């Protein structure tokens, strides 16, 4: 077996610093909420649809915010109105949207009744989510578990109907997981677009209807070929928890969800992001959805050798954030990427060392391995070969999810045929090298071991520094990805608010309870 020689105590040390970093933010989670969390609550209460092209959850939350009553939590106001109007949550929201009704301007209903209403709505929704999880579990039981490494490909035509055709084709060719890539910068929208969409740039909008359409397509093809095909999208950006909820409702299986990506790469406010990821991960955990983190992003702007430790550090921080939201290791798709400059001597050894380190640190997690992108050129033959070497490493280091590289990475979002060629590549390499790792022992003092230990040491040093300063201060000092972010800067801070004493989020309460956190 190819196994690194790494001292347990170093792993423990690194993990301990990460835990400190995350724990020192508990004040935020206990005292604050955000507009997106409240919109999520509404969505979980089955409020959906748009009015004049604005989603109802936004209209309602904006009103409550304007009225300065959001600190009690949106759930309360809607439930109160439901009793008052003897109407469904959706009906309440609709009348608010049409400006016919103001839920803050009606009498207060008996608390008992309000909580009863909420209890009913909550139970209903959580039952639905659990049934989706059950369906997934049963499908795996029926068709067999997901392959390892699972073959993950993206569709990104901008048109959900083209996406479905291409996703089905990919499933037939051997894909295990289909990701629908979002239209450029959906992260920055402070609402979730609505309905089936057919225009997007570099991707397709994440909407509930699009989720539903794709889910249906994948269930169909899965039934045909006798395999459960996983669906994934992004619970990321200003609507992170809302999308997590949509995913839970529509039975997505995996969600791209990083605790820090929004802060660093989208300049979203750090408080907002940390709050949102906390609740969104809880939803994921509850729904049995696997998360995937975005460590690859560090390497698109930094050097993969020099800054390898930032990937490891981020994985450890993401792990701790996931744990406090109730996610189990089996559902943590911690990310890393094959981004060493291929012109470097022994680039393959570097990649192998880094991939082994990730696997060693998270042996029970479906680690997500990202393909070469930065050094992909318009030379499709060369890129195809790089992807083969990347697949090789994934197989021999036992990664959980292999996001396949496309030979046209430097040219366009994947064409139908690019994906087929990529899947064939992975199928061949995985099969050809299946038991490779059983054949070898790693030299104890060789380059690969030395390199992995060095990266871990650098990670420990880095995490120590961050834990001493605190995460927010570290970000202010550009400690992450050389990007400077402040506690009061970035988008979406105005959507963060302090909870009042009678704040209530029935979903979070129930989930916490059931998840035992």
């Amino acid at each position, binding site marked *: 077996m190819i196994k690194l020689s790494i001292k347990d105590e170093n792993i423990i040390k690194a993990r301990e610093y990460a835990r400190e970093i995350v724990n020192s933010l508990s004040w935020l989670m206990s005292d604050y909420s955000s507009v997106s969390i409240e919109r999520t609550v509404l969505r979980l209460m089955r409020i959906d649809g748009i009015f004049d092209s604005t989603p109802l959850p936004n209209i309602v939350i904006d009103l409550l915010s304007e009225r300065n009553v959001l600190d009690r939590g949106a759930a309360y106001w809607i439930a109160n109105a439901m009793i008052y109007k003897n109407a469904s949550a959706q009906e309440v929201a609709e009348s608010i949207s049409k400006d016919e009704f103001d839920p803050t301007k009606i009498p207060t209903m008996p608390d008992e009744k309000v909580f009863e209403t909420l209890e009913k709505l909550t139970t209903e929704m959580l039952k639905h989510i659990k049934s989706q999880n059950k369906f997934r579990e049963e499908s795996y039981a029926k068709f067999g578990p997901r392959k390892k490494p699972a073959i993950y490909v993206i569709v990104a035509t901008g*048109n959900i109907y083209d996406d479905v055709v291409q996703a089905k084709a990919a499933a037939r060719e051997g894909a295990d997981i289909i990701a629908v890539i979002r239209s450029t910068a959906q992260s920055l929208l402070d609402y979730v677009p609505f309905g*089936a969409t057919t225009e997007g740039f570099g991707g397709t909008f994440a909407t509930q209807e699009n989720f539903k359409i794709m889910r249906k397509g994948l269930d169909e093809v899965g039934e045909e070929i006798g395999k459960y095909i996983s669906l994934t999208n992004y619970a990321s950006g200003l609507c992170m928890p809302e999308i997590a909820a949509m995913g839970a409702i529509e039975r997505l299986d995996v969600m791209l969800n990083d605790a820090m990506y929004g802060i660093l790469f989208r300049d979203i406010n750090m408080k907002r992001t940390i709050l949102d990821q906390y609740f969104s991960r809880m939803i994921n955990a509850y729904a049995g959805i696997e998360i995937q983190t975005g460590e690859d992003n560090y390497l698109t702007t930094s050097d993969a050798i020099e800054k390898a430790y930032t990937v490891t550090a981020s994985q450890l921080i993401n792990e701790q954030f996931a744990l406090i939201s109730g996610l189990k290791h089996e559902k943590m798709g911690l990310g890393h990427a094959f981004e060493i400059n291929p012109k470097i001597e022994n680039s393959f050894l570097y990649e192998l060392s880094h991939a082994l380190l990730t696997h060693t640190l998270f042996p029970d997690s479906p680690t997500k391995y990202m393909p070469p992108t930065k050094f992909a050129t318009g030379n499709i033959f060369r890129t195809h070969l790089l992807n083969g070497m990347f697949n090789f490493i994934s197989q021999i280091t036992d990664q959980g999810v292999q996001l396949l590289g496309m030979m046209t990475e430097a040219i366009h979002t994947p064409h139908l045929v690019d994906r087929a060629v990529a899947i064939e590549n992975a199928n061949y390499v995985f099969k050809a090298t299946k038991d490779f790792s059983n054949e070898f022992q790693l030299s104890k003092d060789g380059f690969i071991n030395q390199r992995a230990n060095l990266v871990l040491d650098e990670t420990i040093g880095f995490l120590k520094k961050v834990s001493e300063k605190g995460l927010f201060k570290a970000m202010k000092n550009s400690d992450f990805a050389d990007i400077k972010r402040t506690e009061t800067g970035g988008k979406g801070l105005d959507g963060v608010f302090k909870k009042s004493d009678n704040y209530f989020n029935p979903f979070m309460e129930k989930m916490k309870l059931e998840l035992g956190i």
Partner: protein
Amino acid sequence: MSIIIDSKRIKPYGDRLDDGRMQFSFSLPAPCNEVGKEAAKILLTKMQLNDIEICYLSDLGEGFTHFIAYASTSETIDLTKINVKVVDTPVMDMKATDEFIEKEIGHSIKIVGACIESDAHTVGIDAIMNMKGYDHRYGLERYKYFDATNLGAQVPSEELLRIAVDEKADVILVSQIVTQRNIHIKNLTRLIELAESEGIRDKFLMICGGPRLNHELAIELGYDAGFGTGSYAKDVASFIAFRMVERNKN
């Protein structure tokens, strides 16, 4: 709702329906710079392509440059009008073919096969003829009702015909693998012309095969059938059986 394909005007599909996107790779005796890139674009433009993206160029030395490009065609193809000759006899397995011949003909069919002229690639014809066959499908030699002789590599056309006549063959099989500068077409044509000039063309079913052959081309060259990449003995066997029965009827 889904995307709807109009069979009367299909186009290449890259990213989205009917985008016409295609990939190209070629080299030109042109410099590896903006001038060369422009030359590559002009070439693709002459091929009526648009949205041309030269996404890679690299110096091959000696004044040549390699280009990789994507571009869109606006040509459409009417699928409903395509009429390509294919072997249309049903395909039976070995047992069924033997039974069919036994019942309909009652005696063995004599076959001689060879890789003709300069071609020494016997793996293909062996795959079809030899006992062992190919990819777990037995070859013609194993069939009860075929009496098959494989003459092997580099058999001159004259010799193949001579043996076919001598052995009173019913069927001649010919393999051609090397295709550089269309040598396969030349060799296959030569064989047919020889047979015709000797007045023996119609004595045999003449069947050819090879990676660049198909039924359509074979017919065009004057053969009774042609088989390309991925053919198995059973495809040829069934064809022979049906055709021989037909012949016997006439």
